[in-house]
């Protein structure tokens, strides 16, 4: 069999498919997204994007109760959203196997925090598997369905960005056809009210005992007996860094990170002179190993408490030499990500900045509106928080002479959890302005479908939700729809909405530029440019200015002719290039 290079995400999808998994549910989130996208393309499966992770897990539990095998995928912060069903799903258990991927982001490459999903496994008492490469990702996922059904529990699978987004050789196999199990009503198992939950709690306690026995000898934890002077306990991608940094050490590689194999860890600790835990961005593993009664040695030079751990950090902690290297150049300018040329969010943030509004932001590409030169966002907390935090600002500032408070949220994020926040504002007669940036897609994670663009994961028929209709039905009196590219209309809508003390919702509508990559006519700067610099305050990557004269220039390879800058030039110095598309 020829091995293929698959990312961890692709391998997890393949593993679920080979296990005969019938249904996949997810909300996109880096670094998990490609898992469900890959699964959806495999034959004989049903997969859907859900508005959020709580819904995804609940759909999964319904499908499991009815007898299907289900895959649920999300990024680490998605587990917060589905924590409610997760903790009780640990009580009900499953009928068809349920595997939940939590993709963590140590180093926060594309996240707002670096929480460790293993705490959720421990807290909900759901077993957690943790692969160390794509080959294990496939095997662990495939086996997780048997595990789920034999122990009657959902199984969590943890990856990190270095597992999800690293391609390694994988041997793929065939799909095992698994029939959907019969469903029989069983209130004692599926109705979690006190009378039934109490006995299920006792069942859960028994299950934990049997999992703890199983984990001592399960095939997912492995000991590599090396030099007995040093023993390292680790898991996941960190195992690969440990192998790189200190290939001679004895290594206890955990493939199950909850529950831990207490006895096996004790035996390992006794077989070596010193025993360390190596982990990143968390103390979960060292605390859990210590809780097993294993006495750990401490590094003289501790590992970094936050961010990723790389082999060089491990070598430094072990007192091993580091390779010589050149010093990085000190005069290199930063290269932060930026809104794309033509991004419809740009003009909104320019106008909010101009309005000197207090802007509560949300999660998506538009969070980049916080960066210079737009500086258009005051807060970003979690999915949906823009709307509820704006309400909080208004409550605290009530009766004072304050700057206008404006919430900014994307279409997909609004469907995810902005709706319930807005229900709260309407219900409590809150005021302020909510801007829904409807760019017709879930842009940041790679243009996925969502309820407000009516695109589904497997391109099945859908129904695009009526955004203005929903807002009106919620009881929002002032709903305006504005073209995000029309500067005058955007300015007018924001001004009117922020002038009075009522709740206004403005829908700024214009498709994400990445949805249509066809060549467009571009702009150029004519001889009338005075070097005033207004166009560069838009922060468009296509616009530059001469450092000596201040005269602007537009890069025709980046410009898509969106016309935003033209509307800000008081001198008529920006024009569309004759002859159309570049």
């Amino acid at each position, binding site marked *: 069999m020829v091995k293929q290079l698959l990312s961890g995400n692709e391998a997890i999808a393949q593993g679920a498919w080979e296990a005969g998994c019938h249904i996949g549910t997810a909300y996109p989130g*880096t670094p998990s997204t490609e898992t469900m996208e890959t699964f959806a393309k495999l034959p004989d499966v049903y997969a859907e994007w859900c508005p959020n992770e709580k819904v995804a897990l609940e759909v999964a539990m319904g499908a499991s109760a009815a007898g299907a095998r289900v895959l649920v995928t999300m990024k680490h912060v998605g587990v917060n959203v589905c924590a409610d069903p997760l903790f009780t799903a640990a009580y009900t258990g499953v009928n068809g196997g349920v595997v939940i991927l939590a993709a963590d982001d140590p180093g926060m490459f*594309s996240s707002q925090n670096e929480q460790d999903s293993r705490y959720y496994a421990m807290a909900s008492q759901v077993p957690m598997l943790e692969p160390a490469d794509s080959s294990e990702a496939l095997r662990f996922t495939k086996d997780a369905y048997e595990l789920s059904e034999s122990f009657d529990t959902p199984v969590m699978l943890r990856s990190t960005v270095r597992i999800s987004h*690293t*391609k390694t*050789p994988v041997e793929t196999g065939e799909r095992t056809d698994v029939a959907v199990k019969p469903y029989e009503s069983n209130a004692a198992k599926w109705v979690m009210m006190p009378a039934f939950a109490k006995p299920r709690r006792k069942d859960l306690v028994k299950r934990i005992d049997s999992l703890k026995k199983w984990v001592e000898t399960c095939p997912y934890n492995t000991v590599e007996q090396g030099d007995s002077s040093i023993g390292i306990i680790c898991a996941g991608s960190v195992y*690969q860094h440990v192998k790189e940094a200190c290939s001679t050490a004895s290594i206890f590689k955990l493939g199950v990170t909850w529950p831990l194999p207490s006895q096996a860890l004790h035996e390992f600790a006794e077989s070596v002179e010193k025993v360390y835990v190596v982990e990143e961005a968390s103390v979960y593993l060292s605390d859990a190993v210590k809780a097993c009664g294993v006495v750990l040695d401490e590094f003289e030079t501790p590992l970094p408490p936050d961010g990723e751990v790389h082999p060089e950090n491990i070598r430094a902690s072990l007192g091993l030499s580091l390779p010589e290297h050149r010093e990085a150049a000190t005069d*290199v300018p930063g290269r932060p990500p930026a809104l794309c040329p033509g991004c419809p969010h740009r003009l909104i943030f320019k106008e909010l900045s101009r309005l000197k509004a207090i802007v509560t932001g949300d999660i998506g590409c538009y969070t980049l509106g916080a960066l210079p030169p737009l500086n258009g966002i005051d807060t970003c907390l979690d999915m949906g928080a823009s709307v509820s935090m704006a309400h909080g600002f208004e409550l605290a500032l009530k009766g004072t002479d304050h700057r206008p408070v404006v919430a900014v949220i994307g279409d997909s994020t609004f469907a995810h959890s902005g709706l319930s926040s807005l229900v709260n504002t309407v219900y409590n007669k809150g005021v302020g302005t909510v801007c829904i940036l409807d760019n017709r897609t879930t842009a940041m994670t790679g243009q996925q479908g969502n309820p407000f663009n009516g695109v589904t994961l497997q391109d099945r028929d859908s129904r695009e939700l009526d955004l203005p209709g929903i807002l009106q039905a919620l009881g929002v009196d002032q709903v305006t729809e504005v073209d995000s590219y029309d500067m005058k209309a955007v300015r007018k809508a924001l001004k009117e909405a922020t002038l009075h003390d009522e709740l206004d919702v403005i829908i700024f509508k214009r498709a994400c530029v990445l949805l249509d990559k066809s060549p467009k006519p571009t702009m150029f700067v004519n001889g009338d440019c005075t070097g005033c610099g207004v166009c*560069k*305050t838009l922060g468009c990557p296509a616009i530059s200015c001469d450092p000596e004269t201040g005269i602007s220039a537009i890069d025709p390879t980046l410009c898509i002719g969106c016309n935003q800058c033209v509307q800000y030039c008081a001198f008529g110095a920006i024009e569309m290039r004759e002859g159309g598309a570049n």
Partner: protein
Amino acid sequence: MTQSHVYTILLCGVGGQGTITAADLLARVATAAGLDCKISEIHGMAQRGGAVTTIVRFGDSVSTMVCDKGCADNIVSFERTEALRNIEYLKTDGVLVVNDEEIKPLPVLTGKASMPARSKEHLEDLGATLIPATSIAIEAGTAKCANVVLLGALAPTLPFDMALWEDIIRANVPPKTIDTNIEAFRKGAAYTQGA
């Protein structure tokens, strides 16, 4: 090359320049040569015009997927300032191939920062092979295959037959672009071998 040597290649550039496509082709060559291989890439927010790096590691047995300071056998940079940003990752005797172009980041475009002075001279002092990949790509047929020109420039320093490289390119680029990509690859290789 010793039997156990693991090669580490760091490809860097600006989101959207095609570093991942180039890294994938390299990884396919290594895999076709029967080697263990890992490619690590960072997706997400950085793709919006931010600085990006992709690591390809191959050898008999590859452990980590990241590249520590002083550990890259080769750096292939799609842009000059990104080469300077990543120079600490290069082995002291490593090979540096750089696309001889600059892309200004937003802080420079808005006048809040400036490009490094004499980046070209600095890179030459570091022993870099500076290659006009875009103009070579245009000669080959389209600016879009600048990434394959850079792969061509990298290829002679790696232990793979040029015929294997070309087989992999043929099998993995869109059929209509095969001739252009092969031409781009050969021109890149000729540039390094002539340098």
